[in-house]
């Protein structure tokens, strides 16, 4: 998929440049791409390294478990019919916590564990699976560290200033997603 996108971008750029008279710029840009990638990766290493370290402290000290406990009423409110302390419940809570704290590597395996557990449930199965997937397709990250890294590499004076807007925007979009998903299954045919 992404291979096709890259090829189409390159081919389109080249053909477009013939008509636009920018072929020389396109040729010059080829040598810059890799250089830009290196600069970007260095900033990513720095900022992601910092947050990876901090969030590992959060995991080891039990802070993550504390956040999971705080999330529990919200999870039970959104996912109707799951048992507190059950397999599906635990995986969902840990998946959402991992997303919130930006533990990308941990979030996906936990999410997969959660959908598999939800598939075994008998109450509201399809609806709860949809809800979990929708929540995972909406970003709910406390610290947008990758974005901060890119902003830093381009000389932003305040790489983290976007946090309030990101959090509000995420909150509104995840709420819209959850409400719509619930509406989709509101006609009583929710297995």
């Amino acid at each position, binding site marked *: 998929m*992404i291979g096709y*996108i*890259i090829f189409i971008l*390159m081919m389109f750029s080249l053909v*477009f440049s013939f008509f*636009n008279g920018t072929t020389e710029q*396109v040729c010059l840009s*080829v040598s810059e*791409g*890799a250089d*830009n*990638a*290196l600069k*970007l990766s260095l900033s990513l290493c720095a900022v*992601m*390294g*910092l*947050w*990876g370290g*901090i*969030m*590992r*402290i959060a995991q*080891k000290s039990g*802070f993550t478990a504390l956040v999971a406990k705080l999330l529990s009423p919200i999870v039970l409110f959104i996912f109707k019919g799951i048992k507190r302390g059950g397999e599906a419940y635990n995986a969902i809570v840990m998946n959402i916590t991992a997303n919130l704290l930006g533990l990308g590597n941990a979030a996906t395996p936990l999410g997969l564990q959660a*959908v598999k557990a939800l*598939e075994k449930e008998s109450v509201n199965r399809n609806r709860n*699976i*949809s809800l979990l*997937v*929708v929540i*995972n*397709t*909406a*970003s709910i990250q406390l*610290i*947008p560290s*990758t*974005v901060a890294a*890119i*902003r830093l*590499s381009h000389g*932003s004076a*305040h790489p*983290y200033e*976007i*946090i*309030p*807007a*990101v959090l509000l*925007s*995420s909150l*509104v*979009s995840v709420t*819209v*997603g*959850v409400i*719509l*998903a619930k509406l*989709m299954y509101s006609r009583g045919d929710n297995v």
Partner: protein
Amino acid sequence: MNGELFAVLIIVFICLYGLIKKTDIFSAFNEGAKDNLKTAFDIFPSLIFLLTAVGMLRASGAIEAVADKLSFLFSAIGFPADCLPLVLIRSVSGSGALAVLDDILSKNHPDSITGRIASVMMGSTETTFYTIAVYFSAIRLKCTGRTVIPAVAADITGFVCSVLFVRLLL
């Protein structure tokens, strides 16, 4: 709320919590940082490829041409035309979106309105279609519109809110 202060408070609070709970915060930090460095290093090769393609697109002048043609429409709703490529690629490819954001921020200063809107868009949305594919490949249930429609609606809401909240808050 100040974003920088929020980030610093989280760092300090987590370290304090770790010390109270008698965690070896120094070795925990090193471990976690090392893991993330590996992740950053892992996406480096794909970034080379993607940034080359996106750089070619930028150099061809196609983005400006489309933005110029549509600017009357976009300026009416307060949407910066430069963010259009990000909206198009965001839900399909995460590293592709990273490359496009990098390109947008090299043309617009990250602290400008356009730079901020692009940053908030990237931070408040996800690689929706990729995520849906991964989750539904793990179970027997078929993916239907009942999942896709809310997910896409959430994305669109995220893009609209990004423009709105940057203009209102920052």
